[in-house]
């Protein structure tokens, strides 16, 4: 039996709204469809061959209606405060070269589809790069500016703005060639039990997605919507912050944001969402 307590406005609500008492049935993803600004967002797609899933579902499909609706309208989406700030930052001159982002990238929409294929291989550094890496490389190499911290307001805003240019594009990361080794590394991390509570990513997000773990509706752990505006955080957060949160919950010592381990895991998890639309910046609880 399920009792819905839909009393609190979704913005103020930091807890999930459904109360399950006495062993309710599998709740699964819901069957809502997501259209933003007239654009169709694929929140479920048939899983590619070799996937652990039959069907891939965006985390959006596991959220309460109130939370979902916040993402359906950019004026309601609380992440757009940061996006607007990032548009200003994009034109802000910073560093010894006296340049802004806009001096090289005249229109931010030049970044269309970039987010969909990240992390991608960087032959110069000889490792995969995330959007944070790409932005900081621009800042340090071309602008002569200081690198932004991974979880800084500026970095989150800029990854949201750049990522937004790929909204609606299908996730498609390279996993072969030089990426293969990193893919395997990420896969190994995904299936390794960690922490005193002794669970791997797969225990919750592969074997038990769709069920309630206390007040949380377990999703497939897809990362197509990052950076995400999380109501619990009252702000944007990176993929690596979310990884850290999971590891903390399991009483494990998290890897550092930007570490090789988290980059490998980001690659592997991104590959598990191949075909889902980029939703950046998404809203979750």
């Amino acid at each position, binding site marked *: 039996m399920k009792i819905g307590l839909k009393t609190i406005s979704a913005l103020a609500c930091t807890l999930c709204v459904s109360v*399950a008492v006495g062993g309710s049935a599998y709740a699964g993803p819901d069957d809502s469809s997501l259209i933003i600004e007239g654009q169709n967002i694929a929140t479920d797609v048939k899983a590619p061959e070799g996937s652990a899933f039959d069907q891939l579902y965006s985390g959006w499909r596991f959220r309460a209606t109130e939370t979902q609706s916040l993402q359906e309208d950019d004026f309601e989406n609380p992440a757009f405060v940061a996006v607007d700030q990032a548009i200003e930052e994009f034109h802000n001159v910073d560093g010894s070269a006296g340049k802004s982002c806009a001096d090289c990238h005249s229109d931010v929409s030049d970044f269309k589809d970039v987010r969909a294929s990240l992390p991608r291989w960087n032959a110069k550094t000889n490792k995969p790069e995330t959007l944070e890496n790409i932005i900081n490389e621009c800042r340090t190499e071309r602008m002569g500016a200081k690198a932004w911290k991974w979880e800084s307001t500026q970095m989150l805003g800029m990854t949201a703005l750049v990522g937004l240019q790929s909204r609606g594009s299908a996730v498609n990361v390279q996993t072969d060639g030089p990426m293969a080794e990193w893919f395997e590394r990420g896969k190994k991390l995904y299936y390794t039990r960690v922490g*005193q*509570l002794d669970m791997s990513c797969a225990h919750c997000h592969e074997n038990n997605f769709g069920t309630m773990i*206390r007040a949380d509706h377990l999703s497939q752990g897809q990362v197509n919507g990052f950076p995400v505006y999380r109501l619990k955080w009252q702000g944007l957060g990176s993929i690596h912050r979310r990884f850290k949160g999971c590891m903390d919950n399991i009483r494990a010592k998290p890897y550092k944001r930007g570490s090789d381990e988290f980059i490998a895991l980001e690659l592997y998890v991104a590959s598990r969402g191949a075909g889902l639309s980029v939703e950046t910046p998404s809203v979750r609880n």
Partner: protein
Amino acid sequence: MKSGKYLAAALLLASISSVGLSGVAYGETTAPDAVKFVDDEVSKSLTGAAGNVESGRKVFANRKQGNCLACHANKDLASQPFHGEVGPPLDGVADRYEAAALRAILVNSKIALNEDTIMPSFYRLKNGVRTADKFVGKTVLSAEQVEDVLAYLQTLKDE
């Protein structure tokens, strides 16, 4: 179910005069590494005594302790919000499992249930890699807490 196994275990136990040598550092309490599993069951109380039902009910619900409601629904605690669905509901669990089987599941679910289970092992020192510093060398629950939860679980019967 496992009733055949229970019978076999009971017969086996009857033929063994004393099961489990006491753990040195834990006094009368059995140390995590010294818990004896026989046929995936643990017949001897970890503390040598019966647990306390009321304490066990609290440990069961406490999010920093058993946090059992994270995964298991339990009508006896309907006053608490948010019962999980990951594991089976525990209503009537005492009708389905003997105490020795329940104790084994609590102590080390990977032995008692299966090695791939999501369920934490509540009285085992060696868990996942990179265990956070403040939990290294510690079990999720103490021996006393395991016995208390067990005593509570044994009250969960379908009438």
